[in-house]
């Protein structure tokens, strides 16, 4: 099997750029350190040769950028999509947020992205370089020399609980497609559900009190593509710029989670980008778990055009009172 590395992707992009299929392509750009990869757009293979990177830190999902980018001109935009990115991509198509005819999607494989915060939690600040060798990550530190750690232990949370290695959309796939996985992604939610209401309240009070309302979770979220967010809209009645108190902290996150309920693909970006380390995915996953158990399994983004659970119903749906009492048994 051909090894999927940076060169393969650059060659593919080069081919597409030169045969006129696309005139630009979203890709990852290496940074100053090993882990600060930035999403960017490339117009030439030359630029890619200089800056393109494809490694354990290419977590950024380009789907959301397509909403604005495809509106710019009539040319096709190329985009590299990891399996979980394709779910966001499909969901955006379902919501008519961009025209798929203006995108050329290149599916790329992914064996999980590394979380540099976890590496830092292991070895502290002062990381000179991070490289991967097989299933090990080799970390060169400023103070303690070279260290090794199992890649599985420093994967991002969302990758440890990866829901699917299968691409649900692509124009072209590089490498082989994977399968939808059985993940333990609801374990944490279940753990919370088993707590008493007081414990849960204390847990969330503590987590949400960290919120600085930087809006990173919202602005990175592929489901949050509103032209104008209700929290930015003075007419919505909930507009605010900072969490003035505990209520506003909660309100922002409840409303945000509700607005993406049934549309959230569980990509985990919200938790990844939170500068305060709030486990925001646990809110979204609660909705996903509830939707699955109340209305049958539904994976947003799995199928283009599928009807989201909140824009659907059956006559036999459970009552709200049953919903809240479900956890009691």
């Amino acid at each position, binding site marked *: 099997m051909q090894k999927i590395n940076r060169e393969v992707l650059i060659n593919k992009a080069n081919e597409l750029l030169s045969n006129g299929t696309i005139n630009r392509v979203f890709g990852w750009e290496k940074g100053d350190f090993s882990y600060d990869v930035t999403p960017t757009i490339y117009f030439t293979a030359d630029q890619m040769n200089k800056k393109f990177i494809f490694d354990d830190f290419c977590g950024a999902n380009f789907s959301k950028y397509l909403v604005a980018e495809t*509106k710019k001109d009539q040319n096709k935009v190329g985009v590299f999509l990891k399996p979980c990115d394709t779910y966001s991509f499909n969901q955006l198509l379902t*919501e*008519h*947020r961009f025209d798929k005819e203006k995108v050329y999607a290149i599916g790329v494989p992914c064996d999980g992205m590394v979380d540099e915060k976890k590496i830092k939690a292991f070895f502290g600040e002062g990381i000179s370089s991070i490289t991967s060798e097989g299933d090990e990550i080799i970390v060169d530190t400023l103070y303690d020399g070279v260290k090794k750690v199992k890649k599985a232990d420093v994967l991002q949370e969302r990758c440890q609980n990866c829901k699917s290695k299968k691409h649900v959309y692509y124009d072209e796939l590089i490498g082989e497609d994977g399968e939808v996985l059985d993940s333990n992604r609801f374990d944490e939610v279940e753990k919370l559900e088993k707590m008493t209401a007081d414990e849960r309240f204390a847990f969330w009070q503590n987590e949400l009190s960290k919120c600085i309302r930087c809006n990173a979770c919202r602005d990175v979220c592929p489901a949050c*593509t*509103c*032209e*104008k*967010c*209700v929290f930015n*809209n003075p*007419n*919505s*009645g909930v507009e605010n710029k900072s969490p003035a108190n505990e209520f506003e902290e909660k309100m922002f996150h409840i409303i945000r989670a509700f*607005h*993406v309920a049934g*549309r959230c693909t569980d990509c985990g970006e919200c938790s990844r980008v939170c500068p305060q380390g709030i486990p925001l995915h646990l809110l979204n996953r609660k909705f996903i778990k509830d939707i699955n158990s109340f209305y049958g399994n539904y994976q947003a983004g799995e199928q283009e055009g599928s*009807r*989201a659970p*909140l*824009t*659907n119903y059956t006559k036999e749906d459970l009552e709200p009172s049953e919903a809240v009492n479900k956890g009691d048994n």
Partner: protein
Amino acid sequence: MQRIGVFVCWCGSNIAGTVDVKAVAEALKNEPGVVHSANYQYMCSQAGQELIKDAIKEHKLTGIVVCSCSPRMHEGTFRKTAEAAGLNPYMVEIANIREQCSWIHKDIAEGTEKAIVLGRTAIAKVNLNAPLMAGESPVTKRALVIGGGIAGIQTALDIADAGFEVDIVETKPTIGGKMAQLDKTFPTLDCAACILTPKMVDVAQHEKIKIYSYSEVVDVRGFVGNFEVTIKKRARFVKEDICTGCGLCTEKCPQKKVPNEFNLGMDNRRAIYIPFAQAVPKVATIDPNYCTMLKTGKCGVCAKVCTANAIDYTQKDEFIDQKYGAIVAATGFNPISMEKFDEFAYSQSKDVITSLEFERLMNAAGPTAGKLVRPSDGKHPQKIVFVQCVGSRCAACAEKGKEYCSKICCMYTAKHAMLTRDKYPDTDVTVFYIDVRTPGKNFDEFYRRAAEEYGVHYIKGMVGKISPEGDKLMVRASDLLANKQINMEADLVVLAAAIEPDKSARPLATMLTASMDTNDFFTEAHPKLRPVESPTAGVFLSGCCQGPKDIPETVSQAGAAAAKVIGLLAKDKLKGNPCVAHSDEMMCNGCSSCEKVCPYGAITYEDKEFRGPNRTTLIRRIAKVNEAICQGCGCCTVACPSGAMDLKGFASKQIMAEVDAICK
């Protein structure tokens, strides 16, 4: 800033008994926006209304709050009052301090306090009210009736008689529907054709009615008063306006082996045919599935014999666009398929037939010219068994039968039994029944006559199995009253098959955005009070498409639907409900969430050009609410993630202001 007037009603002692109305009026004076506050014994009285009108003029009020009884009682009254004084009627809010305050509380302090809160809440809302104008749309004065059975015929005639244009779309080559296939009708036993065909002729001759036979509706756009419908007129390869219906072609056509669907396949017709003698329109139709000319290009007999030169093998399907103000669904029913009822041997023996087949066998114009004979050998049956409830009241298996009672089978079985015994007194007739249901005028008398005067054997118990044995049919059943099992021989078995809505109803409902129940019957707007209207404005229901019905019931419903249509078409303009959804296009994402939850299909999308930053142009998909269709439920407002969708008269800001006022 609004200038609000508050009017507190005493309602005699109804309110004033437990609410200190003067204190309420006084307290509300200080609320933001309030410039005038008054109280009066009966605000809804002439004098009370005058008081409001005077205050509107004197204080230049821009909004009023009436603290009185339920808005369900007098909101309309006070809106009219406001309108009469030159104020927009939607600048009126009611604080319900009677039903939801004075009547349920005994303590004056408590009642007064709550009344003040309720008043404050209404004031908070009015502060954010905006004048609303009901949208108007013109009405196309033409109705479309889909289905040309007795239901459609009656509806069309009634509408046309009132002076409005009506089009009937019928999939078959002729109108007439199921009734045309019937022999006699219960409980009077008059001949179906004798009463139906004159009506068919009326339709044909009515200057206001146009029949699109051999046609179907393929697309419906628009909304109440302004539907745009595309009708596909299938090619019948005969020029309708030229064909005289002489029938010569149908005698000369060499293709003789075409199962005759009018007689349910019990005899054959030609490839060119007129379904029956009294067909309307009486023109021939070529069946392209059998016509040798159309299939192979060799034949052309009909064209040769046609003296009118009406045959046109090159005819194509034609699409006609027409505008309508109202649409009536009259798509009717069909007996369900008996294929799955193996225990009754329908597919094993020709002598097991359905009741509709029996109608044709008994009909003078039927395959046997009205002679009751066994389809297998043409012999006269000596023993006939009727089985009721075949596939009706069948909850066990949705694949097989229907859970509901088909309503008409008891009566037509009694009719069949009676007619058989009347025509052939030597025949032994047995009816197996579960219950005999006869709730209609002269119905039970009719059934009793069959049993008492005509000697039909009624046995309570269901047939379990029918097996062909030689040229006989062995019928095994239980007699529940005698508590014994019966094994009887029969020459002919007639199954009272359940009826189901025509298959065309489901796609039609989708086109009309009319709702249906799980059995594919159209849902009525209200099961008791609006039984002939669909919840979709401008769509009406006639006949069995709404539920099983007999002929008199169908005809009365058809007339009722016609009355509703006439009521609609009589208006020049339709005034909408101004409390409708409205999308702010600057915020709309075009994500389709609202469209998916709209029960009326009131939301559509368009690509619109917007000015982007720095002199660029952006094209965005945005939602548009058709105000004439929207009924103002507000479901879309919650489905919309960006909050672009709001509901006039119940805007998010208004409701939040009410919440704030209550929680203060």
